[in-house]
């Protein structure tokens, strides 16, 4: 079943994201500079799509934020997304991430993000015990329904803390 939410892109969101990466590239914040390039305006950095989490009402790692309001959901799903007291937060790692770019993300875009579960598999890990992998695929589309970015994320549920080495 697909989860769907809005993602409103603005210059402040792009600036906060780019500055957290230590970026100095003016294409991410300086409109006059950006206008003079073939891109014609400010764009977002390559990994910016991940920040759609701010707009995802069912995002499991949202801290204390209450907006946008979560939809009522079955207890079993709330537990899976980490709402159940921190146990799963401590065991979930990000295994892989991939983006396919169709067009740059730009300020003013009102995107719709549709996320579907992908493959799941299990592996005996050397450093984290038994590892459960689950993939999710998110399509970012603009108001015309055109694909802007496709993001594939692989989460890893570990049995224990991953040992260092």
């Amino acid at each position: 079943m697909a989860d769907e939410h809005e993602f409103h892109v603005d210059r402040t969101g792009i600036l906060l994201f780019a500055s957290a990466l230590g970026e100095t590239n003016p294409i991410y914040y300086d409109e006059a500079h950006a206008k003079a390039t073939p891109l014609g305006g400010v764009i977002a950095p390559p990994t910016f799509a991940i920040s759609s989490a701010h707009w995802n009402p069912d995002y499991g790692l949202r801290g204390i934020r209450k907006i946008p309001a979560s939809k009522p959901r079955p207890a079993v799903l709330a537990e899976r997304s980490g709402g159940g007291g921190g146990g799963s937060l401590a065991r979930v790692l990000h295994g892989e991430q991939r983006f396919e770019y169709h067009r740059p993300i730009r300020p003013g875009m009102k995107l719709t993000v549709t996320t579907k579960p992908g493959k799941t598999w299990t592996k005996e890990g050397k450093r984290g015990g038994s590892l459960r992998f689950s993939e999710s695929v998110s399509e970012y589309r603009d108001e015309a329904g055109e694909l802007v970015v496709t993001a594939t994320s692989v989460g890893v549920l570990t049995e224990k803390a991953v040992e260092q080495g």
Partner: protein
Amino acid sequence: MSNPKRSFDGLKEGETFEATLVENLTRTQIVQYAAGSGDFNPIHHDETFATKIAGYPSVFAHGMLTMGLLGRLITDWLGDGVLGSYGVRFVRQVWPGDTLRGRGVVKRLEPQGRHGLVEIEVVATNQKGDPVVTGSATALLPRREAGSI
């Protein structure tokens, strides 16, 4: 639409590029990344949670922070809006105090009419020389144009 810094014809298979991604990563930057990305898993900012509940030596950086830093290496080298795809595996954690070095290498060049597709491999390595993030990207670059790039 893109703003390439390099032309397809100016690249060679095996060509490499390198840069320091971050020196002595601060907890402040990790917290800034949490706010920028929206990922507030306490494992990245709450020392008590990270050590006592999760069992790690300390908080550690979001994998996506390193992916973003490595993305900067690519865009600084090839240009803005040129990427067709970018994917990584997170192979080791990145800790406060780590210094990361990024490296890219041109793996494949495929002419496509007036443009060319470049495939690169990238890796971020910590101060011990261990890879923390490995991945690849593709970019569409113009063939030789006006001799300016």
